[in-house]
Every structure is written in structure tokens, then in C-alpha cells.
């Protein structure tokens, strides 16, 4: 069985700071695997292991993503090979544009795939649309919010968890499936996995041609913080504090 997992590499938002002019300062932020993609990688790795299959990772990210630590991190999580296209125009690329690039990687390196897994949404844009766009581009079925998967011949039976109900759906392969974080807990790669990752194949290419964007980004700024009263009391003034709180609750 041949599984592909789409992975986005982003800046670690814990270390993104807001500058005085409300623009974002990424200078101290390292590149990491987008949070919910680690769950998708784990689901893909487990599925491959359980079904005697192979699993490769594909990624459309910025040139900063061509970073040894991040690539090793991906490969230390049960992934056999990594195919990456790196270009800075991909930083805020919309889902249509991103899907075209991912389709290109799949066509060139894994055209005989059975299943493509995606995460819930990326840490930066959280659009949750690349799965649909990629499925449309590849002309295959797609389903999202998947919290469990089981291979049954040329189909995958998924547990699909919505707010008030859980569906059991049979998906014909090949297909694109996007998984919720609950689908699998990402492993903590062991030393041997990390060492082995350094020896696994990975390729990074540039974009062949211009990006086909369908959305233009005009501005990115931190929101204006609502001005607050900033009335701060010391521990001894609990009575005054309680009175202020009671007043606010009215």
C-alpha cells in the first residue's frame, strides 16, 4: 500500500512576537512541522506499518523549511522519504495554489499512491481546504474530520467525527483524507529513529514556474488590543477587588 502525507512547515507561533507597529517579528521563530500535521504523519506511519505499506511525505513550504532539523524531524516519524518544494511565495499561498504544487509533487514522485492524508488545518492559515482542492485536482474522493481509519481491500473505512454525530464511511481508493488530531498521538521519535532519519532520502526543489494564486494578501497585522482599565489590587485588598468584580458582573 502506498501512502502519502502532506506536511506543512511553518514558523513556531510561540516565538512570533508583535512589533511596535503591529507587524509580526519572526526573527526568533524556528521552523517546525505544523502542529496538526504531526498527527497526520503518525496516522500515515501507523497505517503503513499495519498494512505492510510505504509512506512518503510531501511538502509545499517556504525556503526556510529546507532546514536539516525539520526535515530530520519529519523523517524520524516513520516516514520513508520526503519530497519538498520550497519557495517563499508559498508562505501565504491559498489552498488552490498549494494544491497545484502538491499535485505536481505527487504526479512526479508518487503517482501510484493509494491514499493521501492531510491534517486538520495548518497552524498559520487553518483554512482546512487543501484536502478538498487536492482531491479535486486529482479527481478523487475526499472526506474530512476523520478520527479512525482501517484499510479494507481497495477501500478505507473511516470513523468521521462531527459535533453531534459520528459517521462510519467507506471511501474508495485512491482518495484524500484529512484527519483530526485525535486520530493518533504523535510519537516522540527515539534516538535510533532520529539517527536513521539522517540517512533517509529527501529532495528539495524550487517551484517550476510561477505560483497560480487565487487570493491576494493585502496586509498582515496584529489586532489592536482593546484598551483595558488596568486596575490592579494587592493581595491584601481582596475586599476592594471583590467589589470591583461584583460590579463588573452586574
Amino acid at each position, binding site marked *: 500500500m502506498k501512502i502519502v502525507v502532506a506536511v506543512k512547515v511553518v514558523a513556531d507561533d510561540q516565538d512570533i512576537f508583535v512589533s511596535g507597529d503591529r507587524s509580526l517579528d519572526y526573527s526568533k521563530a524556528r521552523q517546525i512541522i505544523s502542529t496538526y500535521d504531526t498527527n497526520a504523519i503518525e496516522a500515515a506511519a501507523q497505517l503503513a506499518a499495519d498494512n505492510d505499506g510505504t509512506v512518503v511525505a510531501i511538502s509545499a513550504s517556504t525556503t526556510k523549511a529546507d532546514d536539516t532539523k525539520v526535515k530530520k524531524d519529519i523523517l524520524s516519524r516513520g516516514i520513508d522519504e520526503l519530497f519538498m518544494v520550497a519557495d517563499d511565495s508559498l508562505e501565504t499561498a491559498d489552498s488552490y495554489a498549494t494544491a497545484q504544487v502538491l499535485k505536481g509533487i505527487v504526479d512526479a514522485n508518487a503517482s501510484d499512491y493509494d491514499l493521501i492524508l492531510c491534517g486538520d488545518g495548518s497552524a498559520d492559515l487553518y483554512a482546512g481546504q487543501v484536502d478538498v482542492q487536492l482531491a479535486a485536482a486529482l479527481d478523487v474522493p475526499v472526506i474530512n474530520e476523520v478520527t479512525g481509519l482501517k484499510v479494507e481491500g481497495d477501500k478505507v473505512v473511516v470513523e468521521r467525527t462531527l459535533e453531534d454525530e459520528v459517521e462510519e464511511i467507506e471511501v474508495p481508493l485512491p482518495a484524500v483524507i484529512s484527519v483530526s488530531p485525535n486520530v493518533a498521538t504523535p510519537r516522540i521519535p*527515539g534516538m535510533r529513529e532520529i*539517527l536513521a532519519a539522517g540517512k533517509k532520502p529527501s529532495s528539495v526543489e524550487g517551484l517550476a514556474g510561477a505560483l497560480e494564486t487565487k487570493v491576494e494578501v493585502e496586509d498582515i497585522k496584529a489586532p489592536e488590543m482593546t484598551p483595558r482599565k488596568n486596575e490592579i489590587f494587592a493581595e491584601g485588598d481582596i475586599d476592594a477587588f471583590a467589589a470591583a468584580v461584583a460590579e463588573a458582573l452586574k
Partner: protein
Amino acid sequence: MADFDAIVIGAGCAGNVAAYTLASAGKAVLVVERGNYAGAKNMTGGRIYTHSLAKVFPDYQDAPLQRKITHERISLMSPDSNFTVDYSARELEEAGNESYSVLRGPFDQWLAEKAENAGAEYIYGIAVEDLIIENGKVSGIIAFGDEITADVVILADGVNSLLTSKAGLSKKAPAINQVAVGAKETIELPAEVIESRFLCNPGEGSSWLFAGDCSNGIVGGAFIYANQDSVSVGIVATMSEVLKQDIPVYQMLENFKQRPEIAPLIRDGKTVEYSGHVVPEGGLHMMPEIVGDGVLVAGDAAMLCMNLGYTVRGMDLAVASGQIAGEAAIKALDAGDTSKAGLAQYKTMLDNSFVMRDMKLYESAPEFLETSPMMFRGVPEMLRDIMTPLFKNNGEPRQHVMQIAMPVVKKMGLFKLAKFAMKAVKSL
């Protein structure tokens, strides 16, 4: 056949240099660091004397060093006064004699990159839990159920090393009077502002150590180091003493920053980092055994650290001990004998180097500092009581220096002071 020739635990000053030394000699070496990047778990005041770094890397000037230290300042603080000595000398700026302020994140990463480029393999984010010991010989490491073997393991895992005792190397758990706890803030300021406030030329900076009221009179002190775009301000105090009084170390730091002598130095600065760390201050007597079957100990893990009051040294010792550990390991691997006997040359080489020579020289410094409370409460006040009358002119009758000084000195105890001074100049 072991997985690696050598495994180094810890990617700090000692670990990276050991790995670099081994990799440069063609040995297969693995470094396992528990932080997500080299330096993530490290902290220094701080300043590094680069003489030992230069011996390993002739291009050490390319390292992310902050400012060359051209002003050595020491201050004695009483609650309401401050006495500062500011020393600068051209000779201290010359190659071989010089020192630089440093920030560990960028610096440790530079060292790690050197080692990686020389061929060392690195694993980050994994804390080694235990050692593989076969027939009394250390032969590898264990973490989360994974085992990796090596002919020699170098422990460079810092002041809180638990592996030293697991390796069977005798190590007394440090007494609480042998460790100090330090808190530090990195405060961002523009380079030109730092240069005008600390009276330095571009690219140059100052080291400034304080003793006395800044640590509430207990053994320890405050420090300020000028980095390129920031200032490191912190407090270090002996743990046993901290526990006996009621001001937490972070509060001491707050109070220090607000002193009228200090506030102008950091005005309008932006605090970008808080950190805390433990500092081994017991000196020679705290050192564990540093050679065992298949194992060597370097850096802070070997307690190679000195606090002399007017200067603090740890990094130059770590770099040198890392290099020497690497060289001893190479010799042992080439000879096919990584037993305690085969690795014993580490201790010999270390003894013959400035590392143990200086550790031995300053053997009594920790005890002196601990048994001289007047250094922190007494001497600063004495200085205040002599200096203030000198500069106070209010129309009241004045006295000669002798008449001012004698009663103050007598109050301290002339004999007591002399004894203190003698001991100081012999221990520090």
C-alpha cells in the same frame, strides 16, 4: 562492534568541543542534547575568556561573541551607598588575554555547527536516562527504551548531572552551600545606548560584579554584562544562605534593578528573557572522579567552575576540558583500551593544564567567601562611612582622612580586617 566510537552527552561548551575534537580526528561521535538546540538549557552571566577557545578554533573571532570586555568593574554595595572600581588596561585587550561577553544560545549553536561540520552526529530533544554498564564498564546510553553503544562515553551534561553517579564515579551530592542559585534577565537596549552608559567603544563592553547588599548581605552578588544589543543583569547567591533569609532571589534581582545606581543603566530597556540556573561553587572539593571504565567527565558536570568574587570562570575551563577529554579519548581509542587505565591520561593531561592548576590555586576561595560575611555586610558599610564624610561638605567641622577612617576601621576591628585582607589576597 559499538555503534559509535564515542558518545558525548550534552551540547554545551565542553560537549561540543569534545565532539569537534573527536570528529576532526575521524572518530565516529554522537552528541545527545536534551534541549531542542545547543544552548537551549544553558545559561551564563556571562563572560568567556577565549584563550582556550582559540586553541581549538583559530577562527574563534567568527563565533557569535558579544562584546570584548575592556572595563572590569567591581562594586561593594551597602544599602545606601556603592563603591566601584573600574579597571581597564590595553594588555587585557590583546589576543590571548582577552574575554568577551557571550549569549549561550547563539554561541553553543556555533560550537555545535563546528562539530557537525567536522562529522559529529547530533540528536536533540532527548534526555539520556541511563548508561549501559557491562562488567563495570560504561558502554553506551539508554533513553526511552532505545540503546546506543560506544567505546567511550563523555559526560558533559552540566551541573545537575545524574549520570556521573550512575557511571559509578564517586560523587558526593553537592551540599547546599556548594551550589549557588542564579537568576538573570536579558534586557534589550540599542548598541549606542549601551556604549554610552557603560563607557565603551563600539564592539566593546564591560563586566561588572557587585557584592554586598545586592544579595541581601549573603554570599553571592550581582552582575551586569554588556552584550551587543542587550545587557545581562542577574543575581547569584549561595543556596544555603538563600534559604536562611526571606527574600527570594528573583526579588533580590528586582530590588537590584531599582537601585538608584542601577536603574539609569537599564532605563527604557525591554526585558526579553528571564532565566535561572544552578552554579557549582564548591571548587576543587566538589569535583567528582572524572575518569572511569569507558567514561570521562568534562565541564560543569566535573564541577569545573570558579567564583572568585572579582571574576567568574567556567566556560574557558569547559572548553579546555572538552578538548582534553576528546584528545584522551582519541588516544585511548587508537590504543584499543578505553578502560579506566586507558583513559587515565585525561586526568594527567588535565592536571598539567591551566584547568587543574587554577582549580587547585583557588581551592580555598569558596571557603574564604563563605567564612567572610564581612565582605558582604561590613566592608561595604565601612567604605561608606569613610567615603561619605570625605565628600560631604555642609559647613560642619571637617576632619583629616586619618581621623575619619580610624574610628570606622577600629569599629570593624583592625586585627579582624587585617586577617580578612590577608586571607583574601591569599585565596582569591
